């Protein structure tokens, strides 16, 4: 009994000691109970995409389900007087194919992926920029976009076919220069180690690329943007045959218009992009193309229509070749309506149709996508 009383007294004494420190911690809103400051915490946001879809032609579970399409957790902060940092961690379904002997089985868990982990040097001379780390490579108009920025549920077939299902990303460095011209012009170049499926994972060679972006104000309300891109990297090769140096070039043209006289009024985005893999390194006449049109016809409503074509692209190893030479040409048509009740949420109803030129492959699908963002999400690039 005496022992219990001693323990109780000790606890009371300890609690009495703790009270002032707890009170002190609560007075400052930027300090945690541990005494560690929260004032320097990064801006944190989470963007999540939920997708329900059905397909007329593809009976797989992947094409007929409701699932998390992707969830991105983003951290942004100034590191110190010298660097600004971004970190994006993505969670997405893992539809990986099992090893040989279990052909046809798929895993249905979730995978973690670090999409962005980069720092930007803050003290570069005027007009110059330097970024080091991991990010989507600065190729074309579509590749640098994150999934929740897409105009449609998925990337266009003309991009997926030549840059891979998950786009081109890499770890390296990129330098950029705002070229002093009478219009906005930005020239950038990068060197990176890319894990993208189009490159040889065994190669030690880097990917080198660059982009020139030009943008003109055609009026206060409209702009025209023209970009040229290119990269070269170690090609993935085929079976036992080593891949050569893979080069791909791209050009993009975007027109944007926004009603000046009405807040969140009519707006139009029209993006066109062509990808040209180096014909010397590829069989057939490979070419990727898409044209996407988005129109805001009411304060909270967008309509989208898109066409894309992937010409003579190589199928992935796990896919059944539909042609003798393993090359496929697919046309894709898409349409959607998007309801955006605020900047932080959107609901999109979309239909898509793909068909290859041999007539053996066809897919008609419908999807409903819900997109929401919580936290301090940085604004998107123009």
């Amino acid at each position, binding site marked *: 009994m005496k022992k219990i009383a001693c323990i109780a007294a000790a606890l009371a004494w300890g609690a009495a000691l703790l009270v002032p420190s707890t009170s002190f911690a609560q007075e400052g809103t930027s300090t945690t109970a541990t005494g560690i400051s929260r004032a320097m915490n990064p801006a944190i946001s989470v963007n999540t995409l939920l997708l329900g879809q059905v397909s007329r032609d593809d009976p797989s579970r992947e094409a007929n389900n409701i699932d998390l399409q992707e969830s991105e957790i983003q951290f942004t902060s100034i590191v110190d007087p010298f660097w600004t940092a971004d970190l994006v961690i993505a969670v997405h379904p893992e539809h990986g194919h099992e090893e040989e002997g279990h052909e046809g089985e798929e895993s249905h868990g979730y995978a973690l992926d670090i999409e962005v982990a980069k720092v930007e040097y803050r003290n570069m001379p005027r007009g110059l920029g330097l970024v080091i780390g991991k990010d989507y490579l600065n190729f074309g108009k579509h590749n640098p976009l994150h999934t929740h920025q897409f105009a449609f549920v998925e990337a266009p077939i003309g991009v997926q076919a030549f840059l891979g299902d998950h786009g081109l990303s890499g770890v390296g460095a990129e330098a950029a220069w705002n070229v002093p011209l009478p219009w*906005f012009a*930005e020239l950038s170049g990068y060197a990176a180690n890319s894990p993208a499926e189009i490159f040889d994972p065994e190669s030690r060679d880097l990917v080198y690329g660059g982009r020139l972006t030009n943008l003109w104000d055609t009026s206060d309300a409209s702009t025209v943007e023209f970009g040229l891109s290119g990269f070269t990297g170690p090609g993935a090769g085929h079976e036992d045959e080593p891949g050569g140096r893979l080069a791909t070039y791209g050009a993009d043209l975007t027109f944007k218009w926004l009603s000046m006289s009405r807040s969140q009024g009519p707006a139009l985005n029209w993006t066109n992009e062509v990808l040209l893999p180096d014909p010397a390194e590829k069989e057939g006449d490979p070419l990727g193309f898409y044209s996407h049109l988005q129109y805001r016809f009411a304060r909270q409503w967008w309509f989208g229509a898109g066409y894309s074509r992937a010409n003579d692209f190589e199928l992935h190893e796990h896919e059944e070749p539909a042609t003798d030479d393993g090359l496929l040409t697919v046309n894709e048509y898409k349409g959607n309506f998007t309801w955006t009740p605020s*900047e932080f949420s959107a609901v999109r109803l979309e239909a898509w149709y793909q068909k290859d030129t041999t007539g053996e492959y066809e897919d008609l699908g419908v999807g409903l996508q819900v997109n929401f963002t919580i936290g301090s999400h940085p604004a998107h690039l123009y």
Partner: protein
Amino acid sequence: MKTCIAALLGTALAWTASAAELEVVSTLPDLGTVAEVVGGDRVTVTVLCPGDMDPHFLPAKPSLARKLGKADALIYNGLELEVGWLSLLIGKARNPDVKPGQPGEIDCSEGLSEILEVPEGEVDRSMGDIHPQGNPHYTLDPRRMVEVAAYLADRFARLDPEGAEAYRAGAADFQRRVEERLPVWRAAAAGAAERPVILYHRNWTYLANWLDLMVVGEVENRPGIAPSPRHVQDLIYQGRHLRNVLILSAHWDHHDVGEEIAERMGAALVILPGQTGAQDSPGDWFGLIDTITAALAAAAPPAGEAP
């Protein structure tokens, strides 16, 4: 030969003179006027947001970043009004002089003595596009713009110490011009101050505060979010006993809702230019306040004037 040397010297002197000026970029045209008056001949001012454009939703065009890339100073409204686009432009401009924390980065809201509608307690987005640091639309209150002028004089002087006296004189000139016009503006809005007023968006809060307008409701019950039909019905029902109501709406707002409320309440929808240069409002910020108060006078004539 002498002519050539004189011409070269003249060119060099002219270049030196222009190099001494501050290249100022203002996010908003209202603040651009203050910068021009305060800076006088020592500054050149470029405005990013066109007058007709709602500054909440200015697209972050790289061409605007190009303008910012040449600036010695960036002046902006602050209180997160430009949160959707300014950080992108600063990043794309690649101009170390206007990056956060640099002397050339000037948040005009730091010069204010009072900020209205600072939320108490926790805020979240169920409240709409709420500004956690307070209502950012202070440029429609001349008293606060006088404070901004004094603040800009101080900040410009830090960047260009030789011009400190000129900047102080410019701020004093701005204050004098405002004080000259204040009685005229208030007299023009005296009739409106006698009427119940409904605001479409809270961008009129500072104007209402300055002119002692009697605000009885808001069309947007959650800022930045389209009003729900239920809220519109409630607003009409609750205001059914009110007479001679004025509904203040910016030219960029969606007028269909305001028109419906006005029709069903027997109220007057007063569409006003939201900022300098909007709706072809004449001249600078002074012209904007002239236009707004004249529109209020037309909708609600002061006592003694024929309607």
